């Protein structure tokens, strides 16, 4: 009897490890290994022929210095665009998520469906569609021009505003959904209680709804900000020669200039800056759980 008990206990001790094994193997092959390879490349020096270079691992931190000093402007610009887009997403998504969660009634699923619908169309096509909407001879430009609201360039397409607009539009769904989930979870009785205690609507919002929606704000901001910083499609199609983002630089370094060490170093600089930003942001908002 004792023997059976031990083997069951042993099996139950091994079972969890067996269950996470596939995920671990997957992570090791598709995340850890490429990441280590990228880290090694970023610290290598290139030698030999130009088009078949030999990469020698040499702890060459000069790649990082070069990446950061040469492309500081594009790095700062990317963070500026992504932060602006995140704030815009939050401002646009919060009222929408609020209405869906509290006011939509039986139309809730319909509105949610409509929010998701455009995202069935591929990212690229949606971005290119904006080129047509914002084109110089289009009605948007002439309407804004008539009321004197055009940026200094006298156009919309190929300006920083088009890029920020594209980022906002393309990633806003990742703000709406987490916000909706956290607002939906709020117990209506809490709002009733605050009203019973003579709280004004504004006070209920700042004291009850907003704190309870914080996990959604945090998750949404991260889900929008992180991909937006590294994005290069929006800058490519909606931007100009003056709106290059760091994603465009990395793409070009890998595929045209073929300076793999500097390109890898840039990827790591970007990754660490995002990580640092995310940590500060999470600390500031003081939320433990993400959703």
């Amino acid at each position, binding site marked *: 009897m004792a023997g059976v008990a031990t083997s069951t206990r042993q099996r139950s001790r091994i079972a969890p490890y067996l269950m996470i094994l596939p995920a671990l193997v997957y992570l090791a092959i598709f995340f850890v290994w*490429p990441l280590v*390879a*990228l880290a*090694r*490349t970023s610290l290598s020096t290139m030698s030999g*022929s*130009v*088009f*078949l270079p030999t*990469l020698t691992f040499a702890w060459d931190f000069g790649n990082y210095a070069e990446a950061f000093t*040469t*492309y500081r402007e*594009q790095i700062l610009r990317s963070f500026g665009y992504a932060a602006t887009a995140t704030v815009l997403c939050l401002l646009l998504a919060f009222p929408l998520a609020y209405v869906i969660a509290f006011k939509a009634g039986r139309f809730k699923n319909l509105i949610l469906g409509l929010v998701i619908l455009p995202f069935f169309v591929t990212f*690229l096509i949606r971005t290119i569609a904006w*080129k*047509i909407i914002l*084109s*110089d*001879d289009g009605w948007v430009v002439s309407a804004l021009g008539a009321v004197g609201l055009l940026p200094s*360039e*006298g*156009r919309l*397409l*190929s300006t920083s505003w088009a890029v920020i607009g594209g980022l906002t539009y393309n990633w806003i769904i990742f703000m709406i959904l987490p916000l909706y989930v956290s607002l939906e979870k709020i117990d209506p009785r809490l709002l009733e209680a605050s009203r019973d205690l003579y709280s004004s609507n504004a006070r209920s919002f700042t004291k009850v709804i907003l704190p309870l929606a914080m996990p959604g704000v945090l998750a949404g901001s991260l889900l929008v900000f992180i991909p937006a910083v590294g994005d*290069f*499609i929006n800058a*490519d*199609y909606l*931007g*100009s*020669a*003056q709106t*290059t983002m*760091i*994603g*465009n*630089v*990395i*793409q*070009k*370094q*890998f*595929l*045209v*200039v*073929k*300076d*793999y060490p500097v*390109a*890898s170093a840039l*990827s790591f600089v970007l990754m660490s800056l995002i990580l640092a930003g995310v940590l500060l942001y999470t600390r500031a908002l003081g939320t433990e759980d993400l959703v």
Partner: protein
Amino acid sequence: MPNEIDRQLIARLAANRTSRRRFIGGSAAAAAALVLGPSFLAACGSDSSSQDAGGGETDESTLRVSNWPLYMADGFIAAFQAATGLTVDYKEDFNDNEQWFAKVKEPLSRKHDIGADLVIPTEFMGARLRELGWLNEISDAGVPNRKNLRPDLIDSPVDPGRKYLAPYMSGMVGIAYNKAATGREIRSIDDLWDPEFRGRVSLFSDAQDGLGMIMLSQGNNPEDPKMPAVQQAIDLVAEQKEKGQIRRFTGNDYADDLAAGNIAIAQAYSGDIVQLQADNPDLEFVVPEAGGTSFLDTMVIPYTTRNQKGAEAWINYIYDRPNYAKLVVYTQFVPVLSDMTDELAKLDPEVANNPLINPSQETLDNIYTWPALTDEQTQEINTAYAAVTGG
């Protein structure tokens, strides 16, 4: 006859939308490369080819051709198969020179099969492969029709005696403008810097195609690309970019903006504009007064080919003027064979008379070509220009 015209129009419209050098597909591949990193790509390359035995194997019944999209005429392959008894495995999987090179350099450096017996890169890429020793010589016996080549193409600075790189199509790199947007005729590079067109000019991000005509406008010649002369052109582009004159640096994606009127003047490839003109008669293509450059796509046989004879038969078939005319009528680029006017006129007189497809000698005399650059030169120019074009 009306049916015939309709079909051609449809072909042109289809070609517009996804012109051969178009950028969209490339962006997705670039995204993948970004995520995965170069060493991972390299690893993929060697993994997928390691099962192939490579060099030694031959298969003389099948010919595997890898070409750019929309660079082939309807029925052409069937006719070739009927004429030679070969089976052609034709793939339109060549989208971008540099990305293709990034994909095949690993297997080719180990002499592993790359799944193609004949490939059609642009001449500079073909020259790079030849330098690396990765091409087979194309025999004279296998391609007797080589004598039909344009006299200026019979020899090449990057391939003395034309032994390895067989021209397929060529085109002019010049400027295109939208008459409705400029309101006047455009003749020279100086028009690009006219403050009237501020923010409505696009340049090529490719260094050779972008800088060649600018060097010519400064009294330099891309045929003698000394770094100070190249740098002078780069500096001018940088200055104009700072002023906000240049809206975008483009690949082939200039075409939509030009047709839509967002861009008034663009550096452009002749064939693209011929295709777009069918749709938008306001578009014009000119070789700038000081001169333009050309590009040339070439058929090459990788040294891993499994069917050398078949590949040569393919080149020879294409170098037959009546066959070649069918290709040109479809692709709208400049023929690489001489005396094509009669054959083109038989199929479509409009094509034969189009100066962008059948340019006059005077125009051809104003076209300059970059010489064979060393790898170091290419890299130096690419890096310097990339710093201006944004990364």
